[in-house]
């Protein structure tokens, strides 16, 4: 269930500073991450220097889902910043903690090597084509973030995830700058 049509045009920009501002506007204070080449420069690097965000570097992506669940019991909001391969690795934790236990898990998923201007479902890469169908079959709301125009989706999506509570996936289409 894609909420909002992609606003992507090849050549448009996606600025990490705008993404980080939108995440903080939603009340997020923790970022839990395994580095992803797709978001390492545009998002993770500035997060490391942001005094309003606490970065917890995990060794594997599924750790982040346990940490985020524990943080929620202290009313702390977290962003799980991972690559699509880490999303696939974490499938059992997402199934249990996010879906069956209805915990507020906010996943920002980097679509590494997605072709510019091409929707994920039409990518030549198998691993990218399967991400949206997997989210759909798990009933996880998803938002495609490909240009600056899409950044407006982020804050309300995170707030909704925590208020419902339920998981949400923010798919980062192009590499943020």
């Amino acid at each position, binding site marked *: 269930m894609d909420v909002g049509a992609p606003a992507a045009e090849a050549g448009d920009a996606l600025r990490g500073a705008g993404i980080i501002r939108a995440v903080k506007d939603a009340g997020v204070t923790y970022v839990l991450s395994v580095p992803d080449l797709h978001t390492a420069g545009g998002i993770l690097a500035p997060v490391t220097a942001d005094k309003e965000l606490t970065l917890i570097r995990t060794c594997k992506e599924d750790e982040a889902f*346990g940490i985020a669940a524990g943080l929620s019991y202290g009313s702390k909001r977290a962003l799980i910043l991972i690559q699509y391969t880490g999303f696939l690795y974490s499938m059992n934790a997402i199934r249990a903690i996010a879906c069956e236990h209805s915990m507020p898990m906010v996943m920002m998923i980097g679509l590494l090597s997605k072709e510019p201007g091409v929707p994920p479902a039409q990518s030549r890469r198998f691993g990218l084509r399967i991400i949206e169908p997997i989210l759909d079959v798990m009933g996880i709301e998803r938002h495609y973030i490909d240009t600056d125009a899409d950044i407006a989706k982020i804050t309300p999506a995170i707030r909704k995830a925590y208020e419902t509570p339920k998981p949400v996936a923010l798919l980062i289409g192009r590499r943020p700058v």
Partner: protein
Amino acid sequence: MMNRRACLEILKRHVTDEIVASTYSTASEWIDVHDRPLNYFSFGAMGLASSHGLGLALARPERKVVVLDGDGSLLMNLGTLVTIAAAAPKNLIHTVWHNGSYEANGGHPLPHGGVDFCGMARAAGITKVHRFDDIRNFEQRIGAILKEEGPVFVDMVIEQGPLGPRSYDEMYSPSRRRKLREALGA
């Protein structure tokens, strides 16, 4: 080796307002020994009890968080030792209940029975590490260990079984989760 239930009865005498995050076999027995709102049950994604505990410890720095992990569970998430060492929460005590088996999965042995969990914890960067295989020693020292500044790692060498009587669904019921949130004011 120690009897798990006897150790948990000793732990019960020292637990006050700590959050106790447990998983699978040890959870079933702990909740039977000391049923209380501040029990957190990690369930559904085996291996993540210590990650849940880390999140709790970061979110609630004013409270001690005691994780009752399993040895099979910890082996599924060894990176957690490095993550905990780096985050270095002062209020986290990570215990692993070490009986050499996947007890909750039918009692089959771990791939290797001689795992040195204390060595792994030290190598990951956790400096406060304890190992107990004698219940009298555990009884004498656990009170002081619960007062140590974390992160602390404790290897509990125990006998296998018997499994505790509580069901996973009952331990993870919505009412228990609500009571925990209420107790934490979350």
